[in-house]
């Protein structure tokens, strides 16, 4: 008896050498973290061994040198966001800033109300903080997002009531890079006397932000997403029109005007300040370069592969972000095939929970496509040659894995995968 055995093309993985001008491995996961810019490191170094003083030591030159470094940094951060120096509080990073903002406002304004509004696509630092507050008698509304990842302002209006004290909506999403309409959100909050906090971790240094024009009351900032060091961040807290007060969550020596006790991470703060100064100088030009590279990556991939879907709005998006789903290919197996390139996947297999990305699910992306997603984060040190190499490797790997995929075979046979009764469901 003859059985028709279809011999597929050679499915052995091809091994590659780096093309000229490209050094492997390539780092293209700049939403996770960024390398420290050499100019940032250079400014930080004296603060470890020479100017090591405690910035709170008021009566000797070592302390004064530390304080000078901190205050210069405060000025640079304030300048980048249109704030004043007294409105900048240093923290250990954006997670602490989010906690301080949300818990600090919630406690301070408890008499006024107990209602907080956020969105389902927020970072866990915001979502889990809100969940904890729910256990302490606060009411939290989690706004849905539209297919493009943006919240609907009408939903926000409807959610506000006379007990609403805080709206916390991120400026740019860490997975899909989508920019929320923060100025409009801030305006709505201002009209109703509600405090507006935004987690701007991914936005700062990439897209211009002005706390006055954008009606922001409280804003979280991180250094390591903008070519500064890890372990340092800041919180902007508005001082007037209106004055916002927050309760401290860390008690101690009363540093940072009582809002955040603890000896300042002077070297880290100096690094954050320098990172802001560089961003201010180079942002306009750099963001054009990044969006050019991002579009090049997208066009090359989508020019060669069918059934590739961009997750989230292309219009309202960080310049260096591309998040795409490759139908019929599982994300982690794709990462394995491009293991000389560092990117992330929304696939369940890359997390301990076996649940695919909650952000992609919130967009209405099916679980199958969420499992097939890859996040590219193009940054300051990526080159056009790297982007081309990445595109070629992704295309080749997706083609190979599709030949290996029973779903691709079924789709080619004209079977609608949605109609199949899956044994595992």
């Amino acid at each position, binding site marked *: 008896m003859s059985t028709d055995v279809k011999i597929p093309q050679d499915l052995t993985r091809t091994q590659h050498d780096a093309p000229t001008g490209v050094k492997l491995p390539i780092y293209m996961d700049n939403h996770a973290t960024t390398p420290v810019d050499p100019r940032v490191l250079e400014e930080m170094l004296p603060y470890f061994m020479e100017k090591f003083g405690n910035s709170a030591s008021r009566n000797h030159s070592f302390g004064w040198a530390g304080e000078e470094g901190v205050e210069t940094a405060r000025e640079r951060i304030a300048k980048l966001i249109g704030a004043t120096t007294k409105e900048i509080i240093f923290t250990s990073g954006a997670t602490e800033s989010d906690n301080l903002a949300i818990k600090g406002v919630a406690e301070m304004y408890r008499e006024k109300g107990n209602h907080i509004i956020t969105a389902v696509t927020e970072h866990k630092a915001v979502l889990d903080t809100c969940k904890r507050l729910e256990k302490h008698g606060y009411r939290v509304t989690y706004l849905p997002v539209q297919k493009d990842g943006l919240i609907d302002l009408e939903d926000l209006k409807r959610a506000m009531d006379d007990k609403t004290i805080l709206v916390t909506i991120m400026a740019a999403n860490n997975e899909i890079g989508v920019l929320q309409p923060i100025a409009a959100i801030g305006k709505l909050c201002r009209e109703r006397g509600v405090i507006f906090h935004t987690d701007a971790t991914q936005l700062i240094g990439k897209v211009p932000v002005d706390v006055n024009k954008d009606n922001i009351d409280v804003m979280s900032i991180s250094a390591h997403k903008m070519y500064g060091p890890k372990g340092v961040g800041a919180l902007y807290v508005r001082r007037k029109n209106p004055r916002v007060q927050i309760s401290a969550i860390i008690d101690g020596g009363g540093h940072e005007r009582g809002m955040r006790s603890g000896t300042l991470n002077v070297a880290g703060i100096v690094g954050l300040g320098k990172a802001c100064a560089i961003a201010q100088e180079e942002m306009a030009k750099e963001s054009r370069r990044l969006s050019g590279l991002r579009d090049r990556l997208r066009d090359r991939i989508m020019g060669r592969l069918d059934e590739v879907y961009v997750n989230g709005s292309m219009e309202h998006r960080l310049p260096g972000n591309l998040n795409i789903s490759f139908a019929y290919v599982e994300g982690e197996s794709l990462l394995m095939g491009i293991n000389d390139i560092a990117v992330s996947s929304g696939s369940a297999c890359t997390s301990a929970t076996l649940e695919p990305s909650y952000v992609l699910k919130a967009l209405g992306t099916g679980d199958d496509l969420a499992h097939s997603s890859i996040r590219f984060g193009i940054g300051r040190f990526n080159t056009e040659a790297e982007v081309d190499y990445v595109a070629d490797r992704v295309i080749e790997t997706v083609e190979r894995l599709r030949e290996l995929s029973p779903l691709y075979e079924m789709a080619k046979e004209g079977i609608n995968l949605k109609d199949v009764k899956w044994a*595992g469901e």
Partner: protein
Amino acid sequence: MSYSDKVIDHYNNPRNVGSMDKSSADVGTGLVGAPECGDVMKLQIKVNPATNVIEEAKFKTFGCGSAIASSSLATEWVKGKTVDEALSIKNMDIVKELSLPPVKIHCSVLAEDAIRAAIGDWKKKQESAKPVAVEAR
């Protein structure tokens, strides 16, 4: 997460990738998992009707590297075994051979399910074929 050398080897050089005619009487097809769960395996066997020996095995898998490796290994192992011998392959044998971490054990379970589903499909075909053969005489 780092992968064992054997998982990487199966991922880089998957064995027995392909498809056989699922309507053929001596081919059994198992399709397990679901796209929403991030794993789908199709495993096919071709059985010699006289000896019950699995002479050919093919797979296609949508899933992570460990899922691809588990199903690739499964096709290697069932080949040359009788149907009953193949049924004795346990998922923990696959876990051991590929050094799968706890979070990837479900990949081996799916591979065992795929073997059983393929054999089950083949057996069903043999049973439904019998009465037809009697009538034809």
